[in-house]
């Protein structure tokens, strides 16, 4: 079976993916302005400071939008349809893209409370995903 697209960690993101491998979900908080951000960057997207901290996130989130995808966007998803593509709002504020798993795709609705779960896609890569609480 073809692999789905997988992240190649780089300077900004290596710590995030390393933590995910350990089933920890961390996000960045700016020491200068105090804002959280997602996705990880080398600077704060609110104030451009390089002084960033990694923090353990609560893993709690709410579905901002979701869509049941019936067509594979990539050969690596050929056996994965239908799947739920979603944007969730983390308890800390930022939004991220994810999949909602562990439930009937058609049952997933905007506003649902979800929490993080970890999917080990390969030995090297773990993806944080979300499941209804």
């Amino acid at each position, binding site marked *: 079976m073809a692999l789905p697209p997988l992240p*190649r960690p780089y300077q900004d993101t290596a710590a995030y993916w390393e933590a995910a491998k350990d089933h920890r979900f961390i996000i960045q908080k700016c020491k200068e302005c105090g804002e959280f951000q997602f996705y990880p960057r080398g600077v704060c997207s609110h104030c451009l400071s390089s002084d960033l901290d990694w923090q353990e996130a609560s893993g709690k989130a709410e579905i901002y939008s*979701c869509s049941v995808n*019936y067509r594979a966007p*990539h050969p*690596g998803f050929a056996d994965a349809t239908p799947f739920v*593509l979603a944007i969730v709002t983390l308890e800390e504020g930022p939004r991220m*893209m994810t999949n909602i798993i562990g439930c009937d795709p058609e049952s997933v609705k905007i506003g649902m409370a979800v929490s993080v779960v970890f999917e080990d896609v390969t030995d090297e890569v773990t993806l944080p*995903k979300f499941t209804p609480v």
Partner: protein
Amino acid sequence: MANAMRDVAIVGVAESDLGRVPDKSKFQLSAEASRLALDDAGLSVKDVDGLFTTIITEGGQFSSMMMAEYMGITPRFTDSTSIGGSSFVAYVEHAAMAIATGLCDVALICHGSTNISDRGGKGGPMSASTDVFGPSQFEEPYGVSTVGSYALAAQRHMHEYGTTSEQLAEIAVATRKWASMNPKARMRDPITIDDVMNSRVIASPLHLLDCCLVTDAGGAVVLTSLERARDLKKTPVQVLGTGEAHTHRMISQMPDLTQTAAAISGKLAFERSGLTHSDIDVAQIYDSFTITVLLTLESLGFCAKGEGGAFVSNQRTAPGGDFPMNTQGGALSYTHPGMFGIFTVIEGVRQVRGECGPRQVPNAQVALCNGTGGVLSSTGTIILGRD
């Protein structure tokens, strides 16, 4: 500040061969559209001293250098701004600025794409890379796609405002009616709201017929000063106002899934033109998906936020309706080579010139064209008027 861009006009427009053109490269389609647009203006390639183009697929690196070399042009103003499908609408602003300030005299905006032939003639995904570098590694592993991204916006709009799939279908049905009057349109057979609703769901709530075509196509637009334009072949079409903006690159970073950057670019274009919504006789609104149109109409202020569904109901945008829109058949039914922006400009110009035959909007004096690029990321808005 006086609007110097009013002294600039669009003088030539053209498409290349459209549809499935497997025997021509994207570079040839772009160059042939350029030749035809220059013919339309009564100018030659020797006159071109400003070039505006971008190719986002294979072989497109250094787009403006590459296409200038391909066509034998030595520009003294060059622009490969790459903001997706809206690039070619934003280029009208850039070209008008360059001409108004004397940085170039004749600007050529061109585009070519073999989007369907590149996929072996099928509309499926193009990329099969498994190794994602850069911020998109926070989306692609989750199976994001263009249609999936727009579906997320549609779902949110439905959630917030009660917009329905039937209302989105109204747009596809009306656009097909316009296409039936355009011999160059790829899909010309009438469709009904039920046809859209019964077409398979690609990414909920979007059905197959909520989605644009995938085709090969090229297009080109030529601009010069209004003064010079008055000595050329066709009625000059003045650039009355322009605006551009972008708010994000990836859909998960969009500040508000129900409002596009057209809220910024449209406001600028209206302000700079000194015109209001009621002055617009015909609108060309980027229709990569039906939801793109609905969000854009709201963001441009043709109706209040949340009222887009009601606005497009009862075939308001169809021939004979009081909001003629996407009169060549749009990306939904006429052509869509991955980036559609230049075709909104071409049709806007033709409507204002009055050369659209059976689909001509009677006495269309002022056209608004809006491009959207990326995943509802970028917009360019221009308002055009007859000299």
